[in-house]
């Protein structure tokens, strides 16, 4: 962060001023005084807290999107999975995830296997508070888990899913995260570092197109393959049986929530707002993030209109999210126009790859693989086009190495679960719906076929 330098003079002045006339200032207000450096510290912390609660809100967005995209008989289960995953993700990321990702990685592959503890308020050093940092990083981790739940919906039992979430948030996500955000081997800034020597730049992933979204996407993809498709989804001789989501407005609400949360996701990833440069950066990120989402929607509605003669709202919603994922790897350097373009390509990816996955008989209930995995790769690989500090090779190395790691580790975990407690409910249970099988409460008990009024 080079703005460091610029500001030191300014700061000197500021301090002087406080020295000289601080007293006068006092006459103006009885609030505790705060000095220049502390102000930046507080502002950075507020960025994390505000950005963090916006990203936390994304958990509700995923819940609503998924509740709207699954069939009625699995809606209560999907709601349960979402509130439960956000809970276990938070605990796992405190118990081991955070320190595994950030504690002394130092150019290496992982940090320490220790729970995160928080210094006393008066010993809380750095550019922001320790707890605000944990909070902000935790909600990112939970996002990766939310991505998985959407893809494997309607056919996975609750407990094996939650166990996977524990491993994902406690180990898989933090380890690959350490490589870049933990200042590991993909990041290390020294010009002599392996990545720079080999690729001429470190791996760039501003807010996590790869670290968060592709990671969740890979885990979801592996899970979907091991699980197999929902019963009846694919007929003999390549027939595909659509299973329309049960509640379009809920899915729309979920998408709007995610869109809103993304301002915290990308904006907060600037990690600081306590200076003109940072404030300007965060603002530009807000603008680019919104334009990319808009580009994704517009691309999706135009393409579905052209191809199918009607606008597919579920594609439009996926398009918005794909646009957001695409810009996430680099929301700062692009021009507004470039942001629209990057997002629009995300929308295009959705429209083309959603049917493709069906052809491959990979059953992705909410379209999380096109949105988070494929658009995430696109967004990451296109960074060098707008950011001269990135190199295609470095991006490829990052995308590839993280892909390899997440695929292998999640494959191991999914497989163990499959052959121990098992992933899928029985056929009858799946037919009756997971709500009846594992939750015992219909989502809409008074209407729909299961009406309990009779």
């Amino acid at each position: 962060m080079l703005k460091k330098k610029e500001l030191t003079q300014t700061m000197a002045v500021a301090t002087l001023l406080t020295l000289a006339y601080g007293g006068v200032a006092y006459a103006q207000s009885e609030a505790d005084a705060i000095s220049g450096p502390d102000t930046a510290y507080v502002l950075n912390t507020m960025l994390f807290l505000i950005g963090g609660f916006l990203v936390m809100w994304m958990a509700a967005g995923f819940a609503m999107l998924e509740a709207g995209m699954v069939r009625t008989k699995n809606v209560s289960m999907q709601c349960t999975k979402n509130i439960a995953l956000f809970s276990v993700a938070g605990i796992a990321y405190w118990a081991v995830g955070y320190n595994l990702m950030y504690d002394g990685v130092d150019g290496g592959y992982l940090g320490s296997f220790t729970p995160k503890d928080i210094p006393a308020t008066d010993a809380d050093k750095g550019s922001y508070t320790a707890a605000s940092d944990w909070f902000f990083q935790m909600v990112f981790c939970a996002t990766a888990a939310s991505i998985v739940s959407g893809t494997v919906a309607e056919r996975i039992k609750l407990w094996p899913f939650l166990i996977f979430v524990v491993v994902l948030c406690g180990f898989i996500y933090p380890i690959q995260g350490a490589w870049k955000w933990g200042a590991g081997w993909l990041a290390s800034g020294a010009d002599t570092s392996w990545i720079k020597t080999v690729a001429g730049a470190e791996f760039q992933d501003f807010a996590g197109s790869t670290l968060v979204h592709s990671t969740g996407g890979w885990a979801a993809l592996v899970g979907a393959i091991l699980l197999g498709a929902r019963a009846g989804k694919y007929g003999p001789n390549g027939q595909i049986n659509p299973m329309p989501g049960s509640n379009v407005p809920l899915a729309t609400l979920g998408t709007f929530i995610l869109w809103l949360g993304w301002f915290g996701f990308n904006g907060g990833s600037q990690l600081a707002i306590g200076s003109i440069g940072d404030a300007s950066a965060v603002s530009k990120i807000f603008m680019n993030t919104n334009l990319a989402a808009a580009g994704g929607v517009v691309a999706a509605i135009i393409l579905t209109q052209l191809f199918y003669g009607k606008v597919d709202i579920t594609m439009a919603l996926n398009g918005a999210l794909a646009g957001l994922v695409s810009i996430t790897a680099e929301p700062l350097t692009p021009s507004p126009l470039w942001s629209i373009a990057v997002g629009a390509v995300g929308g295009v990816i959705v429209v083309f790859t959603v049917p493709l996955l069906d052809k491959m008989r990979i059953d992705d209930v909410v379209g999380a693989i096109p949105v988070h995995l494929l658009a995430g790769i696109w967004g990451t690989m296109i960074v060098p086009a707008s950011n001269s500090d990135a190199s295609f090779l470095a991006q490829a190395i990052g995308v590839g190495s993280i892909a390899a790691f997440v695929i292998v580790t999640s494959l191991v975990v999914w497989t163990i679960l499959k052959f121990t407690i098992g992933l899928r409910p029985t056929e009858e249970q799946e037919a009756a719906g997971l709500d009846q099988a594992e939750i015992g409460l219909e989502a809409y008990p008074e209407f729909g076929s299961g009406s309990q009024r009779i």
Partner: protein
Amino acid sequence: MKLITAIIKPFKLDEVRAALTELGLEGMTVSEVKGYGRQKGHTEIYRGAEYAVNFLPKIKIEVAVADDAAEKAVGAITSSAHTGQIGDGKIFVSSIDSTVRIRTGETDDAAL
């Protein structure tokens, strides 16, 4: 007594009801059904995959009437539910052995 069962297009319900009340038939039971027949459904595309919606929303009307009132009633329904478009629906007339009005215990014609 006869039980007249008519399958009609939903938006015709009010007209049919009006026609029947005109005949002094002020009781009926209505339910939502799905119909399959000559009138073909439509195909939709969801996330790139095509699927057919074969069953179309229809309304089913059941009216119990005295034997002599049946013919008129059928006529009234036929004309009021008619659009000439495929899918207008059907009317089935069958016999009822007996009828009871639960409130009063009255039976047969008196119960209608």
